[in-house]
């Protein structure tokens, strides 16, 4: 086991007991077009610490992370790394050479390559012409076994065949396949991980810091950051506004520093225009008959939640509602529907288009006559929604210049801007910050009150409190229907598991 990543990094790093800060950012600024992502960031990452980095979407976390990893250069200011040789620029190559590794939120794996090949791609260590494959299998296998014992992932499988949680494990493990790891940057590493794997990951981060590795942990999960960091830096509007010692702060204090609201709902959003809807409130607009269990029914003016453990059939129901046509049996749906996909990168945004074009693509019926789009109506519609949802950036901004949370706002606005009777949301708020979520919840409620029917799948049970009715899924069936008093998080969790055996099916 002498050539494994983890034992190598164990021996390589503490040999120089330097305790200078691993990396220091001073007055770093960065702009993308008109959007100012960073406006003078000061951040210091000490030797052997876990620094939590929290902030709303668009606060500049991802940009700062790319600066620290040397992938992008600051417009102004400087990034000083302990490992950097004097006179050398801090870029992707020198960062990689000094043991900086990054775990991306949008997983950076090639679906068509095997787990071992993916690991070899990002492993900077030289390997021979022959036998590199075996060595790569050995290294990634050992890394997986060390961090996630009992992971059950075959290193020969293509990563495209793996489940989301397994891919996340591979992404984390392969960052550890390196010599002399000095800094590990984790961007939302536990978003798709289960409870056990999350605990395993944090346990391993502690063994890494004991060897002197510095960890930058970016997460929206306040409890995890509080429980596992040494210090927590809070970002807001492109600067680090405050740094707390994790032991001496609380979730509400962090939320206040981030500028977020602690209350669950309350952001006031007024829908730009009353939807022109034909169905009356309370009329049944969609049904899905089920052979067993409860049948799905949706009325106009309702906000319906789909809950349960991930992958129990919620997405299939949304697909049925979205893809239903004249030939589908047992499904009735309104003619005009809109859909908000969960994975904005692959099936959401049109990356070459501007914000306005992305926003109005579904609303063409309303703003065109005889197939010709009315340019002014389009711009007005886009401006209304950008104002209502406080999207950062104007209508002409390229969509890719926006942060992830703002892109998600545009996608939600796209669905509501269309004159659809039924809006389907496929877990659209993964990795979206609290303030944005509150705005979007308020929007959804306002739109439902205006007579639309909204069907919303979410993996976060606490969000279901906003719904008028909730269907709980288990093993591809609807097992319960909750509303009013019975719609509680405890009840959803109880119904998500089999009451008889207590097992997840």
């Amino acid at each position, binding site marked *: 086991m002498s050539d494994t990543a983890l034992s190598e990094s164990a021996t390589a790093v503490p040999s120089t007991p330097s305790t200078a800060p691993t990396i220091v950012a001073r007055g770093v600024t960065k702009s993308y077009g008109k959007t100012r992502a960073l406006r003078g960031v000061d951040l210091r990452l000490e030797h052997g610490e876990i620094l939590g980095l929290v902030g709303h979407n668009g606060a500049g976390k991802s940009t700062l992370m790319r600066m620290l990893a040397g992938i992008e250069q600051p417009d102004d200011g400087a990034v000083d790394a302990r490992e950097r040789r004097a006179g050398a620029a801090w870029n992707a190559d020198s960062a990689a050479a000094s043991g900086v590794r990054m775990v991306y939120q949008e997983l950076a794996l090639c679906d*068509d*390559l095997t787990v071992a090949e993916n690991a070899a791609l990002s492993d900077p260590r030289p390997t021979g012409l022959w036998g590199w494959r075996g060595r790569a299998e050995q290294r990634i296998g050992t890394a997986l*076994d060390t961090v996630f014992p009992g992971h059950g992932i075959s290193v020969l499988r293509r990563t495209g065949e793996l489940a989301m949680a397994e891919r996340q494990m591979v992404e984390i493990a392969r960052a550890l396949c390196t010599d002399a790891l000095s800094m590990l940057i984790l961007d939302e590493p536990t978003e798709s991980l289960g409870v056990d794997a999350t605990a395993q990951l944090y346990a391993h981060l502690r063994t890494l810091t004991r060897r002197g590795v510095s960890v930058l942990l970016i997460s929206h999960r306040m409890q995890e950051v509080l429980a596992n960091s040494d210090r927590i830096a809070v970002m807001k509007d492109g600067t680090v506004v405050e740094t707390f010692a994790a032991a001496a702060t609380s979730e509400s204090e962090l939320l206040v520093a981030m500028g977020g609201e602690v209350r669950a709902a309350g952001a006031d959003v007024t829908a730009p225009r009353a939807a022109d809807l034909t169905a009356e409130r309370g009329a049944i607009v969609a049904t899905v008959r089920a052979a067993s269990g409860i049948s799905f029914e949706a009325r106009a003016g309702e906000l319906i939640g789909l809950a349960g453990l991930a992958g129990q059939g919620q997405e299939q129901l949304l697909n049925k509602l979205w893809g239903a046509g004249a030939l589908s049996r047992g499904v009735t749906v309104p003619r005009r529907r809109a859909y908000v996909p969960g994975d904005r990168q692959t099936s959401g945004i049109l990356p070459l288009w501007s914000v306005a074009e992305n926003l109005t693509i579904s609303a063409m019926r309303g703003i065109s006559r005889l197939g010709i789009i009315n340019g002014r109506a389009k711009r007005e519609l886009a401006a209304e929604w950008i104002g209502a949802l406080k999207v950062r950036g104007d209508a002409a901004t390229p969509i890719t210049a926006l942060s992830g949370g703002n892109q998600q706002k545009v996608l939600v606005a796209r669905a509501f801007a269309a004159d659809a009777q039924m809006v389907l949301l496929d877990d659209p708020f993964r990795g979206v910050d609290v303030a944005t979520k509150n705005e979007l919840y308020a929007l959804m409620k306002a739109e439902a009150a205006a007579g639309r029917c909204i069907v919303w799948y979410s993996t976060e049970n606490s969000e279901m409190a906003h719904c008028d009715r909730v269907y709980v899924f288990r093993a591809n069936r609807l097992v319960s229907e909750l509303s009013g008093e019975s719609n509680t998080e405890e009840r959803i969790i109880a119904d998500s598991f089999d009451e008889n055996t207590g097992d997840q099916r």
Partner: protein
Amino acid sequence: MTTTIQASARPGLAGRARVSAVHGFPALLSLVALVVIFGISVVNQPGILSVSGLTLMLMSAVPLVFAAQAQMLIMSVGDIDLGIGALIGLVTVIAATLLAESPLLGWGLLVAIVGVYALLGLIVQKRGVPSIIITLGMSFVWIGLGLQILPTPGGATPDWLTAIGRWRPDSVPAPLVFIVVATLIGWYLARQSRIGSRMRALGSSAPTLQKAGWSLAGTRVTAYVLAAVLIVVSGLLLASQTRSGDINSASNFTLMTIAAVILGGGTFSGGRALPIGATLGAVTLGLITVLLSLMSLSSSLQSAAQGIIVLAVLAGRIITERFTR
């Protein structure tokens, strides 16, 4: 470390075989089609079950297999080469004229072709020109050059090349040796080497490859250069069989190689490379011609028959994939 590391992090042989079977599954139907066609041919003409019979039957597939491996490399980075047939024709022309008359100039031209391919890869990567446009454009250049050098089919290949074409061992059919060699080269380049995994990574997800610190341009240029070398070899082997040069001798190779890669489990979107599948696809398509002449069907039906078999295999794959899921 509190956790115990398992003795073997690497999977065993059984796991390896199972995963290979799953990954190679798309090529299986191509194998079925090949066996069926071969079976029908044997029933019609039992004489082919001999070394000389197999040699005659497989001979036409040899250049096609090399060309299919080249196309597979290009398709693995997500591109398509529409100039492959014209270029093979040009190589036969060069082989039958300049390579015999002034070897230095001939070899220089062949090396220049490889250089042009490197340039094509660079342009596709840096300027974002779609590969089908640039290779289609180049195919006209190749045809023009070929007609300039040798307006009508003819010429004579150098002796050493003719000797390769004449090589007939008694124990094994010579074409089978070439086909196996081509497959091994393709397998090493695309699946076994590090550059091969980078090429597939480029076709699968270019941003990921870039994040991992590799040059996208370098990877694409390498893929094009390796493909160009295989194309030149394919052209030389075709010339060694015909012993003459003809710019139009391989014009149907372009679409046949693409069909072979797809039959063998490749995808248009890139990221996949199945060398054994590509070989099976190419041999299947090559054998259809032989089978039709054995059944004394009109050769004008050849293209139609090839198309029907490609469609049948692809439809069969979709159906079986649905059942196995």
